[in-house]
Protein backbone atom coordinates (compact mmCIF):
# COMPACT_ATOMS: atom_id res chain seq x y z
CA UNK A 1 0.00 0.00 0.00
CA UNK A 2 1.47 3.36 -0.94
CA UNK A 3 1.72 6.13 1.63
CA UNK A 4 -1.21 8.00 0.03
CA UNK A 5 -3.63 5.12 0.48
CA UNK A 6 -5.65 4.27 3.53
CA UNK A 7 -7.98 1.55 4.54
CA UNK A 8 -11.11 1.40 2.45
CA UNK A 9 -14.20 3.48 3.18
CA UNK A 10 -15.99 0.25 4.04
CA UNK A 11 -13.36 -0.67 6.60
CA UNK A 12 -13.60 2.78 8.18
CA UNK A 13 -17.37 2.45 8.34
CA UNK A 14 -17.03 -0.96 9.97
CA UNK A 15 -14.73 0.59 12.59
CA UNK A 16 -17.32 3.22 13.40
CA UNK A 17 -20.08 0.62 13.61
CA UNK A 18 -17.96 -1.44 16.02
CA UNK A 19 -17.15 1.59 18.17
CA UNK A 20 -20.79 2.62 18.45
CA UNK A 21 -22.19 -0.85 18.97
CA UNK A 22 -20.47 -1.05 22.33
CA UNK A 23 -22.33 1.98 23.63
CA UNK A 24 -25.21 1.33 25.96
CA UNK A 25 -27.89 3.75 24.81
CA UNK A 26 -28.54 6.91 22.84
CA UNK A 27 -27.19 9.16 25.53
CA UNK A 28 -23.89 7.28 25.39
CA UNK A 29 -23.93 7.53 21.61
CA UNK A 30 -24.59 11.24 21.92
CA UNK A 31 -21.53 11.57 24.15
CA UNK A 32 -19.50 9.62 21.59
CA UNK A 33 -20.58 12.04 18.86
CA UNK A 34 -19.78 15.06 20.99
CA UNK A 35 -16.31 13.64 21.65
CA UNK A 36 -15.79 13.18 17.90
CA UNK A 37 -17.04 16.72 17.40
CA UNK A 38 -14.45 18.08 19.81
CA UNK A 39 -11.75 16.30 17.81
CA UNK A 40 -12.87 17.81 14.51
CA UNK A 41 -10.25 20.19 13.26
CA UNK A 42 -11.81 23.21 11.63
CA UNK A 43 -9.93 25.56 9.35
CA UNK A 44 -9.68 29.10 10.60
CA UNK A 45 -9.60 30.57 7.13
CA UNK A 46 -13.08 31.83 6.45
CA UNK A 47 -14.97 28.61 5.89
CA UNK A 48 -18.15 30.26 7.18
CA UNK A 49 -19.30 31.68 3.86
CA UNK A 50 -22.73 31.61 2.28
CA UNK A 51 -21.39 29.38 -0.46
CA UNK A 52 -20.27 26.77 2.06
CA UNK A 53 -23.37 26.97 4.21
CA UNK A 54 -25.83 24.11 4.32
CA UNK A 55 -29.18 25.82 4.09
CA UNK A 56 -31.90 24.92 6.51
CA UNK A 57 -29.95 22.79 8.93
CA UNK A 58 -31.23 22.95 12.48
CA UNK A 59 -27.78 24.24 13.40
CA UNK A 60 -25.45 26.26 11.22
CA UNK A 61 -23.14 24.05 9.16
CA UNK A 62 -20.50 24.92 6.63
CA UNK A 63 -18.82 22.38 4.37
CA UNK A 64 -16.03 23.12 1.93
CA UNK A 65 -14.83 20.64 -0.65
CA UNK A 66 -11.70 21.09 -2.76
CA UNK A 67 -9.99 18.87 -5.31
CA UNK A 68 -6.29 18.63 -4.53
CA UNK A 69 -3.94 16.14 -6.20
CA UNK A 70 -6.91 14.18 -7.46
CA UNK A 71 -8.42 13.82 -3.99
CA UNK A 72 -11.48 15.40 -2.45
CA UNK A 73 -10.37 17.40 0.56
CA UNK A 74 -13.19 18.22 2.92
CA UNK A 75 -13.36 20.78 5.69
CA UNK A 76 -16.34 21.64 7.83
CA UNK A 77 -17.50 23.69 10.75
CA UNK A 78 -20.54 23.96 12.99
CA UNK A 79 -21.36 25.45 16.37
CA UNK A 80 -23.41 22.43 17.42
CA UNK A 81 -21.32 19.67 18.95
CA UNK A 82 -23.53 16.83 17.75
CA UNK A 83 -23.40 18.16 14.21
CA UNK A 84 -19.62 18.46 14.46
CA UNK A 85 -19.55 14.83 15.58
CA UNK A 86 -21.56 13.65 12.61
CA UNK A 87 -19.40 15.69 10.25
CA UNK A 88 -16.28 14.19 11.85
CA UNK A 89 -17.57 10.70 11.04
CA UNK A 90 -18.43 11.66 7.46
CA UNK A 91 -14.95 13.13 6.98
CA UNK A 92 -13.32 10.07 8.53
CA UNK A 93 -14.94 7.94 5.82
CA UNK A 94 -14.73 10.28 2.82
CA UNK A 95 -12.01 12.90 3.22
CA UNK A 96 -8.98 12.43 0.99
CA UNK A 97 -10.61 9.89 -1.31
CA UNK A 98 -10.80 10.04 -5.08
CA UNK A 99 -13.92 11.84 -6.37
CA UNK A 100 -15.36 8.62 -7.80
CA UNK A 101 -15.01 6.93 -4.42
CA UNK A 102 -16.65 9.85 -2.60
CA UNK A 103 -19.50 9.92 -5.08
CA UNK A 104 -20.01 6.17 -5.05
CA UNK A 105 -19.53 5.18 -1.42
CA UNK A 106 -22.69 3.94 0.16
CA UNK A 107 -22.73 5.37 3.68
CA UNK A 108 -24.21 2.30 5.30
CA UNK A 109 -22.77 3.13 8.71
CA UNK A 110 -25.48 5.79 9.09
CA UNK A 111 -28.10 3.04 9.00
CA UNK A 112 -26.22 0.31 10.85
CA UNK A 113 -25.38 2.58 13.77
CA UNK A 114 -29.00 3.72 13.78
CA UNK A 115 -27.87 7.32 13.38
CA UNK A 116 -30.11 8.04 10.44
CA UNK A 117 -33.24 6.84 12.22
CA UNK A 118 -32.35 8.09 15.69
CA UNK A 119 -31.61 11.64 14.75
CA UNK A 120 -34.63 13.86 15.15
CA UNK A 121 -36.19 14.33 11.71
CA UNK A 122 -35.02 17.93 11.31
CA UNK A 123 -31.43 16.96 12.02
CA UNK A 124 -31.72 13.84 9.85
CA UNK A 125 -32.71 16.14 7.01
CA UNK A 126 -29.65 18.24 7.72
CA UNK A 127 -27.49 15.14 7.58
CA UNK A 128 -28.99 14.25 4.19
CA UNK A 129 -28.20 17.74 2.96
CA UNK A 130 -24.59 17.49 4.10
CA UNK A 131 -24.15 14.17 2.31
CA UNK A 132 -25.82 15.57 -0.79
CA UNK A 133 -23.51 18.57 -0.86
CA UNK A 134 -20.38 16.43 -0.56
CA UNK A 135 -21.60 14.07 -3.28
CA UNK A 136 -22.52 16.94 -5.60
CA UNK A 137 -18.96 18.24 -5.47
CA UNK A 138 -17.49 14.77 -5.96
CA UNK A 139 -19.73 14.03 -8.93
CA UNK A 140 -18.61 17.24 -10.62
CA UNK A 141 -15.02 16.10 -10.35
CA UNK A 142 -15.61 12.49 -11.36
Amino acid at each position, binding site marked *: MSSGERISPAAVQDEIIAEMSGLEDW*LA*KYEYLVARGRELRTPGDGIRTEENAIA*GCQSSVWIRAELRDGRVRLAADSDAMITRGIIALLLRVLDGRAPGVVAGTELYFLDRTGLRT*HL*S*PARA*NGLAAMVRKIRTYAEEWT
Partner: protein
Amino acid sequence: MADATTRVSTDELRGLLDDPRLQLVDVRPIDAYNGWRLRGEARGGHIGGARTLPAKWADYVDWIEIVRAKGIDPGRPLVVYGYDSEDTGRVAELFGRAGYGDVRTYHEFVDGWCADATLPMDRLPRYTQLVSPGWLKQLLTTGTAPEYSGDRFVLCHAHYRNRGDYEKGHIPGAVDLDTNFLESPETWNRRSPAELEKVLEALGIAEDTTVVLYGRFSFPDNLDPYPGSAAGHLGAFRCAFIMLYAGVKDVRILNGGLQSWLDAGFEVTTDEGARHPVEEFGAQVPGAPELAVDLPEAKAILASDDANLVSVRSWPEYIGEVSGYNYIEKKGRIPGSVYGDCGSDAYHMENYRNLDHTTREYHEIEASWRRVGVTPDKHNAFYCGTGWRGSEAFFNAWLLGWPRVSVYDGGWFEWSNDPGNPIETGVPDPDPRTGATAV
Protein backbone atom coordinates in the same frame (compact mmCIF):
# COMPACT_ATOMS: atom_id res chain seq x y z
CA MET B 1 -36.92 -0.41 33.25
CA ALA B 2 -37.21 0.05 36.99
CA ASP B 3 -38.07 3.55 38.06
CA ALA B 4 -35.51 4.40 40.70
CA THR B 5 -36.62 8.00 41.14
CA THR B 6 -38.65 9.34 44.04
CA ARG B 7 -42.36 9.31 43.38
CA VAL B 8 -44.56 12.20 44.39
CA SER B 9 -48.25 11.90 45.22
CA THR B 10 -50.99 14.16 43.94
CA ASP B 11 -51.07 16.05 47.24
CA GLU B 12 -47.30 16.45 47.23
CA LEU B 13 -47.31 17.71 43.66
CA ARG B 14 -50.07 20.17 44.44
CA GLY B 15 -47.82 21.56 47.18
CA LEU B 16 -44.76 21.62 44.95
CA LEU B 17 -46.55 23.84 42.42
CA ASP B 18 -45.99 26.76 44.80
CA ASP B 19 -42.22 26.38 44.35
CA PRO B 20 -41.20 28.77 41.54
CA ARG B 21 -38.10 26.68 40.92
CA LEU B 22 -40.10 23.55 40.10
CA GLN B 23 -39.98 22.29 36.52
CA LEU B 24 -42.71 19.94 35.32
CA VAL B 25 -42.11 17.77 32.30
CA ASP B 26 -44.95 16.05 30.44
CA VAL B 27 -43.71 13.03 28.45
CA ARG B 28 -47.04 12.15 26.80
CA PRO B 29 -47.56 12.67 23.06
CA ILE B 30 -47.72 16.35 22.22
CA ASP B 31 -51.32 15.98 21.09
CA ALA B 32 -52.28 14.91 24.63
CA TYR B 33 -50.38 17.90 25.97
CA ASN B 34 -52.33 20.17 23.63
CA GLY B 35 -55.69 18.88 24.82
CA TRP B 36 -56.60 15.53 23.25
CA ARG B 37 -57.84 12.99 25.79
CA LEU B 38 -55.92 10.00 24.46
CA ARG B 39 -56.64 7.82 27.48
CA GLY B 40 -60.18 8.95 28.12
CA GLU B 41 -59.08 11.18 31.00
CA ALA B 42 -61.71 13.40 32.57
CA ARG B 43 -59.98 16.59 31.43
CA GLY B 44 -57.66 17.08 28.47
CA GLY B 45 -54.47 19.10 28.44
CA HIS B 46 -51.55 19.27 30.81
CA ILE B 47 -50.75 20.28 34.37
CA GLY B 48 -50.49 24.07 34.47
CA GLY B 49 -46.89 25.15 33.92
CA ALA B 50 -45.72 21.81 32.51
CA ARG B 51 -43.42 21.66 29.49
CA THR B 52 -43.89 19.12 26.74
CA LEU B 53 -41.12 16.60 26.11
CA PRO B 54 -42.71 13.51 24.54
CA ALA B 55 -41.11 10.17 25.44
CA LYS B 56 -40.82 9.56 21.70
CA TRP B 57 -38.03 12.11 21.63
CA ALA B 58 -36.01 10.09 24.13
CA ASP B 59 -35.14 7.81 21.20
CA TYR B 60 -33.38 10.65 19.44
CA VAL B 61 -29.63 10.78 19.84
CA ASP B 62 -29.94 14.56 20.15
CA TRP B 63 -32.54 14.34 22.97
CA ILE B 64 -30.40 16.24 25.45
CA GLU B 65 -30.00 19.11 22.98
CA ILE B 66 -33.78 19.38 22.75
CA VAL B 67 -33.88 19.47 26.55
CA ARG B 68 -31.29 22.22 26.66
CA ALA B 69 -33.01 24.20 23.92
CA LYS B 70 -36.16 24.16 26.04
CA GLY B 71 -34.20 25.65 28.92
CA ILE B 72 -34.87 22.77 31.31
CA ASP B 73 -32.35 23.53 34.04
CA PRO B 74 -30.28 20.77 35.70
CA GLY B 75 -29.93 22.93 38.79
CA ARG B 76 -33.65 23.05 39.56
CA PRO B 77 -36.02 20.36 40.80
CA LEU B 78 -37.82 18.37 38.14
CA VAL B 79 -41.00 16.32 38.21
CA VAL B 80 -41.66 14.05 35.23
CA TYR B 81 -45.13 12.69 34.50
CA GLY B 82 -46.88 10.81 31.72
CA TYR B 83 -49.60 8.31 30.97
CA ASP B 84 -47.63 5.27 32.05
CA SER B 85 -44.82 4.39 34.38
CA GLU B 86 -42.56 3.01 31.68
CA ASP B 87 -42.30 6.23 29.67
CA THR B 88 -42.15 8.36 32.78
CA GLY B 89 -39.43 6.23 34.35
CA ARG B 90 -37.41 6.01 31.17
CA VAL B 91 -37.30 9.77 30.68
CA ALA B 92 -36.67 10.41 34.37
CA GLU B 93 -33.72 8.06 34.27
CA LEU B 94 -32.33 9.80 31.20
CA PHE B 95 -32.49 13.09 33.07
CA GLY B 96 -30.60 11.50 35.92
CA ARG B 97 -27.91 10.19 33.60
CA ALA B 98 -27.64 13.60 31.97
CA GLY B 99 -26.73 15.18 35.30
CA TYR B 100 -30.08 16.39 36.61
CA GLY B 101 -29.78 16.03 40.37
CA ASP B 102 -33.35 16.35 41.67
CA VAL B 103 -35.65 14.28 39.46
CA ARG B 104 -38.95 12.96 40.78
CA THR B 105 -41.82 11.20 39.04
CA TYR B 106 -45.57 11.54 39.26
CA HIS B 107 -47.74 8.57 38.31
CA GLU B 108 -51.29 9.69 39.12
CA PHE B 109 -51.96 12.06 36.25
CA VAL B 110 -55.09 10.40 34.85
CA ASP B 111 -56.73 9.15 38.03
CA GLY B 112 -55.39 11.73 40.45
CA TRP B 113 -54.91 14.98 38.63
CA CYS B 114 -57.31 15.00 35.68
CA ALA B 115 -60.10 13.57 37.79
CA ASP B 116 -59.93 16.41 40.32
CA ALA B 117 -61.45 19.51 38.73
CA THR B 118 -59.91 21.74 41.40
CA LEU B 119 -56.37 21.07 40.16
CA PRO B 120 -54.92 23.41 37.51
CA MET B 121 -54.87 22.22 33.90
CA ASP B 122 -54.06 24.07 30.75
CA ARG B 123 -54.68 23.33 27.09
CA LEU B 124 -54.40 24.84 23.66
CA PRO B 125 -57.75 26.58 23.11
CA ARG B 126 -58.30 25.24 19.57
CA TYR B 127 -56.48 21.92 20.05
CA THR B 128 -59.17 20.11 18.06
CA GLN B 129 -57.84 21.75 14.89
CA LEU B 130 -54.38 20.20 15.32
CA VAL B 131 -54.91 16.47 15.04
CA SER B 132 -52.79 13.44 15.78
CA PRO B 133 -52.02 10.62 13.34
CA GLY B 134 -54.05 8.26 15.55
CA TRP B 135 -57.08 10.54 15.32
CA LEU B 136 -56.77 10.70 11.54
CA LYS B 137 -56.33 6.95 11.27
CA GLN B 138 -59.49 6.43 13.30
CA LEU B 139 -61.40 8.88 11.13
CA LEU B 140 -60.20 7.21 7.94
CA THR B 141 -60.98 3.69 9.07
CA THR B 142 -64.22 4.19 10.98
CA GLY B 143 -65.59 7.46 9.62
CA THR B 144 -65.78 8.84 13.12
CA ALA B 145 -63.36 10.24 15.68
CA PRO B 146 -63.42 12.24 18.92
CA GLU B 147 -64.34 15.92 18.55
CA TYR B 148 -65.71 15.24 15.07
CA SER B 149 -69.41 15.56 14.55
CA GLY B 150 -69.52 16.07 10.81
CA ASP B 151 -70.63 13.62 8.20
CA ARG B 152 -68.14 14.54 5.55
CA PHE B 153 -64.39 15.08 5.46
CA VAL B 154 -61.68 15.63 2.87
CA LEU B 155 -58.02 14.84 3.47
CA CYS B 156 -55.54 16.92 1.44
CA HIS B 157 -51.89 16.19 0.69
CA ALA B 158 -50.49 19.68 0.05
CA HIS B 159 -47.54 20.46 -2.18
CA TYR B 160 -46.34 23.16 -4.50
CA ARG B 161 -46.18 22.23 -8.21
CA ASN B 162 -44.82 18.84 -7.24
CA ARG B 163 -47.34 16.13 -7.98
CA GLY B 164 -44.51 13.64 -7.72
CA ASP B 165 -44.46 14.34 -3.99
CA TYR B 166 -48.05 13.09 -3.84
CA GLU B 167 -47.41 10.17 -6.18
CA LYS B 168 -44.41 9.06 -4.14
CA GLY B 169 -46.73 8.16 -1.29
CA HIS B 170 -49.59 9.79 0.55
CA ILE B 171 -51.99 8.95 3.32
CA PRO B 172 -54.69 6.60 1.98
CA GLY B 173 -57.68 8.57 0.77
CA ALA B 174 -55.83 11.88 0.53
CA VAL B 175 -56.42 14.02 -2.52
CA ASP B 176 -53.71 15.93 -4.28
CA LEU B 177 -53.72 19.66 -3.40
CA ASP B 178 -51.30 21.87 -5.30
CA THR B 179 -51.03 25.24 -3.54
CA ASN B 180 -51.40 26.78 -6.99
CA PHE B 181 -55.03 25.68 -6.92
CA LEU B 182 -55.60 28.26 -4.21
CA GLU B 183 -52.84 30.81 -4.87
CA SER B 184 -52.28 32.98 -7.89
CA PRO B 185 -48.89 32.18 -9.46
CA GLU B 186 -48.54 35.84 -10.46
CA THR B 187 -49.04 37.54 -7.12
CA TRP B 188 -48.79 34.48 -4.82
CA ASN B 189 -51.86 35.90 -3.09
CA ARG B 190 -55.05 33.95 -2.48
CA ARG B 191 -57.10 33.51 -5.62
CA SER B 192 -60.31 35.45 -6.23
CA PRO B 193 -63.42 34.40 -4.30
CA ALA B 194 -65.00 32.97 -7.47
CA GLU B 195 -61.89 30.92 -8.26
CA LEU B 196 -61.65 29.66 -4.68
CA GLU B 197 -65.28 28.62 -4.65
CA LYS B 198 -64.84 26.63 -7.84
CA VAL B 199 -61.64 24.93 -6.70
CA LEU B 200 -63.08 24.00 -3.31
CA GLU B 201 -66.21 22.55 -4.90
CA ALA B 202 -64.05 20.48 -7.25
CA LEU B 203 -62.08 19.18 -4.28
CA GLY B 204 -65.33 18.15 -2.62
CA ILE B 205 -65.18 20.85 0.03
CA ALA B 206 -68.30 22.70 1.15
CA GLU B 207 -68.36 25.20 3.97
CA ASP B 208 -69.41 22.48 6.44
CA THR B 209 -66.90 19.86 5.26
CA THR B 210 -64.14 18.93 7.70
CA VAL B 211 -60.80 19.39 5.95
CA VAL B 212 -57.59 17.84 7.24
CA LEU B 213 -54.37 19.05 5.63
CA TYR B 214 -50.81 17.86 5.78
CA GLY B 215 -47.65 17.90 3.71
CA ARG B 216 -44.23 16.35 3.51
CA PHE B 217 -41.08 18.13 4.63
CA SER B 218 -38.34 17.00 2.26
CA PHE B 219 -35.53 19.40 2.97
CA PRO B 220 -36.07 22.52 0.89
CA ASP B 221 -32.86 23.85 -0.60
CA ASN B 222 -32.71 27.57 -1.33
CA LEU B 223 -30.53 26.86 -4.35
CA ASP B 224 -33.26 24.80 -6.03
CA PRO B 225 -35.28 26.66 -8.64
CA TYR B 226 -38.48 25.86 -6.70
CA PRO B 227 -37.55 25.30 -3.04
CA GLY B 228 -41.20 25.47 -2.02
CA SER B 229 -41.74 22.14 -3.76
CA ALA B 230 -39.95 20.47 -0.86
CA ALA B 231 -41.79 22.42 1.85
CA GLY B 232 -45.10 20.60 1.59
CA HIS B 233 -46.17 20.89 5.21
CA LEU B 234 -45.60 24.64 5.12
CA GLY B 235 -47.82 24.65 2.04
CA ALA B 236 -50.48 22.83 4.06
CA PHE B 237 -50.62 25.74 6.52
CA ARG B 238 -50.93 28.14 3.61
CA CYS B 239 -53.89 26.19 2.23
CA ALA B 240 -55.43 25.98 5.71
CA PHE B 241 -55.35 29.78 5.99
CA ILE B 242 -56.93 30.25 2.57
CA MET B 243 -59.67 27.73 3.35
CA LEU B 244 -60.46 29.45 6.65
CA TYR B 245 -60.61 32.77 4.80
CA ALA B 246 -62.87 31.23 2.18
CA GLY B 247 -65.26 30.15 4.91
CA VAL B 248 -64.58 26.46 5.56
CA LYS B 249 -65.70 26.05 9.17
CA ASP B 250 -63.66 23.04 10.25
CA VAL B 251 -60.06 23.18 9.01
CA ARG B 252 -57.53 20.95 10.71
CA ILE B 253 -53.83 20.28 10.34
CA LEU B 254 -52.20 16.90 10.93
CA ASN B 255 -49.68 17.81 13.61
CA GLY B 256 -46.22 17.14 12.20
CA GLY B 257 -47.50 16.42 8.70
CA LEU B 258 -46.62 13.23 6.90
CA GLN B 259 -43.66 12.74 9.25
CA SER B 260 -46.00 12.11 12.18
CA TRP B 261 -48.02 9.61 10.17
CA LEU B 262 -44.86 7.72 9.27
CA ASP B 263 -43.52 7.96 12.84
CA ALA B 264 -46.76 6.34 14.04
CA GLY B 265 -45.98 3.39 11.77
CA PHE B 266 -48.94 3.94 9.45
CA GLU B 267 -48.82 3.05 5.76
CA VAL B 268 -48.85 5.36 2.79
CA THR B 269 -50.22 4.53 -0.63
CA THR B 270 -49.66 5.48 -4.24
CA ASP B 271 -53.33 4.90 -5.10
CA GLU B 272 -54.99 8.09 -6.20
CA GLY B 273 -57.46 9.44 -3.64
CA ALA B 274 -60.92 9.87 -5.10
CA ARG B 275 -62.39 13.34 -5.33
CA HIS B 276 -66.09 13.72 -4.73
CA PRO B 277 -66.96 17.20 -5.98
CA VAL B 278 -69.82 19.06 -4.35
CA GLU B 279 -72.44 21.04 -6.24
CA GLU B 280 -72.29 24.09 -4.04
CA PHE B 281 -69.84 25.47 -1.49
CA GLY B 282 -72.93 26.53 0.42
CA ALA B 283 -71.94 29.96 1.63
CA GLN B 284 -70.61 33.27 0.43
CA VAL B 285 -66.85 33.26 -0.30
CA PRO B 286 -64.98 34.65 1.55
CA GLY B 287 -66.72 33.61 4.71
CA ALA B 288 -64.03 35.12 6.94
CA PRO B 289 -62.63 38.10 5.00
CA GLU B 290 -61.15 39.59 8.17
CA LEU B 291 -58.48 36.87 8.19
CA ALA B 292 -56.73 38.38 5.17
CA VAL B 293 -55.15 41.82 5.10
CA ASP B 294 -54.04 43.65 1.98
CA LEU B 295 -51.76 46.62 1.42
CA PRO B 296 -54.03 49.46 2.60
CA GLU B 297 -54.88 47.63 5.83
CA ALA B 298 -51.21 46.72 6.31
CA LYS B 299 -50.35 50.42 6.18
CA ALA B 300 -53.14 51.18 8.66
CA ILE B 301 -51.75 48.53 10.99
CA LEU B 302 -48.32 50.12 10.84
CA ALA B 303 -49.87 53.45 11.82
CA SER B 304 -51.83 51.95 14.73
CA ASP B 305 -50.60 51.45 18.26
CA ASP B 306 -53.13 48.66 18.69
CA ALA B 307 -51.79 46.37 15.97
CA ASN B 308 -48.64 44.61 14.77
CA LEU B 309 -47.42 43.71 11.34
CA VAL B 310 -45.36 40.65 12.19
CA SER B 311 -42.50 39.72 9.88
CA VAL B 312 -42.28 35.93 9.95
CA ARG B 313 -38.97 35.93 8.15
CA SER B 314 -35.39 34.94 8.96
CA TRP B 315 -32.88 37.35 10.45
CA PRO B 316 -30.86 37.72 7.21
CA GLU B 317 -34.08 38.69 5.42
CA TYR B 318 -35.19 41.02 8.21
CA ILE B 319 -31.95 43.01 8.23
CA GLY B 320 -31.73 43.04 4.44
CA GLU B 321 -28.77 40.75 3.82
CA VAL B 322 -30.84 38.55 1.50
CA SER B 323 -34.23 38.84 -0.16
CA GLY B 324 -34.90 35.22 0.71
CA TYR B 325 -36.25 34.28 -2.72
CA ASN B 326 -34.77 33.70 -6.13
CA TYR B 327 -37.60 35.71 -7.69
CA ILE B 328 -37.51 38.72 -5.35
CA GLU B 329 -34.77 41.25 -5.88
CA LYS B 330 -35.19 43.80 -3.13
CA LYS B 331 -33.79 43.17 0.32
CA GLY B 332 -34.96 44.61 3.60
CA ARG B 333 -38.02 44.89 5.80
CA ILE B 334 -41.19 46.86 6.05
CA PRO B 335 -40.37 49.73 8.43
CA GLY B 336 -42.21 49.25 11.69
CA SER B 337 -42.74 45.53 11.22
CA VAL B 338 -42.10 43.34 14.24
CA TYR B 339 -39.54 40.53 14.01
CA GLY B 340 -41.37 37.20 14.16
CA ASP B 341 -38.28 35.03 13.47
CA CYS B 342 -39.27 32.01 11.38
CA GLY B 343 -35.96 30.18 11.50
CA SER B 344 -33.20 29.72 8.99
CA ASP B 345 -34.66 30.83 5.66
CA ALA B 346 -37.74 31.35 3.51
CA TYR B 347 -38.65 27.67 3.44
CA HIS B 348 -38.04 26.73 7.07
CA MET B 349 -40.01 27.34 10.26
CA GLU B 350 -37.70 25.93 12.92
CA ASN B 351 -38.84 28.48 15.50
CA TYR B 352 -42.44 27.36 15.13
CA ARG B 353 -41.81 23.63 15.08
CA ASN B 354 -40.32 20.87 17.12
CA LEU B 355 -37.54 18.77 15.67
CA ASP B 356 -40.06 16.18 14.47
CA HIS B 357 -42.04 18.90 12.62
CA THR B 358 -44.88 18.91 15.11
CA THR B 359 -46.01 22.37 16.11
CA ARG B 360 -43.83 23.84 18.82
CA GLU B 361 -45.11 23.99 22.39
CA TYR B 362 -47.60 26.83 22.29
CA HIS B 363 -46.32 28.39 25.52
CA GLU B 364 -42.90 28.75 23.89
CA ILE B 365 -44.38 30.41 20.81
CA GLU B 366 -46.42 32.76 22.99
CA ALA B 367 -43.33 33.64 25.03
CA SER B 368 -41.25 34.41 21.94
CA TRP B 369 -44.03 36.65 20.61
CA ARG B 370 -44.50 38.37 23.96
CA ARG B 371 -40.82 39.37 23.95
CA VAL B 372 -41.40 41.43 20.80
CA GLY B 373 -44.80 42.79 21.80
CA VAL B 374 -46.99 40.38 19.87
CA THR B 375 -49.83 39.84 22.36
CA PRO B 376 -53.46 38.75 22.11
CA ASP B 377 -54.87 42.16 23.01
CA LYS B 378 -53.68 43.54 19.66
CA HIS B 379 -54.55 42.87 16.06
CA ASN B 380 -51.64 40.83 14.73
CA ALA B 381 -51.19 40.44 11.00
CA PHE B 382 -48.48 37.97 10.03
CA TYR B 383 -46.57 38.18 6.78
CA CYS B 384 -43.47 36.81 5.09
CA GLY B 385 -42.37 36.84 1.46
CA THR B 386 -45.54 35.57 -0.17
CA GLY B 387 -47.65 34.20 2.67
CA TRP B 388 -46.63 30.65 3.55
CA ARG B 389 -44.65 31.32 6.71
CA GLY B 390 -47.08 34.05 7.65
CA SER B 391 -49.88 31.50 7.36
CA GLU B 392 -48.17 29.01 9.68
CA ALA B 393 -47.59 31.70 12.31
CA PHE B 394 -51.18 32.90 11.83
CA PHE B 395 -52.45 29.34 12.33
CA ASN B 396 -50.56 29.15 15.63
CA ALA B 397 -52.15 32.38 16.85
CA TRP B 398 -55.54 31.14 15.67
CA LEU B 399 -55.05 27.86 17.56
CA LEU B 400 -54.39 29.99 20.63
CA GLY B 401 -57.81 31.51 20.15
CA TRP B 402 -56.46 35.03 19.72
CA PRO B 403 -59.39 37.17 18.60
CA ARG B 404 -57.79 39.40 15.96
CA VAL B 405 -55.32 37.55 13.77
CA SER B 406 -54.77 37.70 10.06
CA VAL B 407 -52.27 37.24 7.25
CA TYR B 408 -50.93 40.19 5.30
CA ASP B 409 -51.17 38.25 2.08
CA GLY B 410 -49.02 40.39 -0.20
CA GLY B 411 -46.05 40.37 2.15
CA TRP B 412 -42.60 41.44 1.16
CA PHE B 413 -43.21 40.52 -2.49
CA GLU B 414 -46.06 43.02 -2.83
CA TRP B 415 -44.55 45.69 -0.57
CA SER B 416 -41.15 45.71 -2.27
CA ASN B 417 -42.65 45.72 -5.77
CA ASP B 418 -43.95 49.25 -5.25
CA PRO B 419 -41.03 51.69 -5.34
CA GLY B 420 -43.14 54.13 -3.35
CA ASN B 421 -43.04 51.92 -0.26
CA PRO B 422 -40.21 52.60 2.19
CA ILE B 423 -37.69 49.88 3.01
CA GLU B 424 -35.49 49.53 6.05
CA THR B 425 -32.29 47.50 6.46
CA GLY B 426 -29.74 46.83 9.19
CA VAL B 427 -30.14 45.84 12.81
CA PRO B 428 -32.96 47.83 14.41
CA ASP B 429 -32.49 49.57 17.73
CA PRO B 430 -33.29 47.96 20.07
CA ASP B 431 -32.22 44.61 18.65
CA PRO B 432 -35.41 42.47 18.67
CA ARG B 433 -33.41 39.31 19.34
CA THR B 434 -32.08 40.55 22.67
CA GLY B 435 -33.93 43.74 23.50
CA ALA B 436 -30.53 45.45 23.80
CA THR B 437 -30.17 49.06 22.72
CA ALA B 438 -27.18 50.27 20.73
CA VAL B 439 -24.60 52.01 22.90
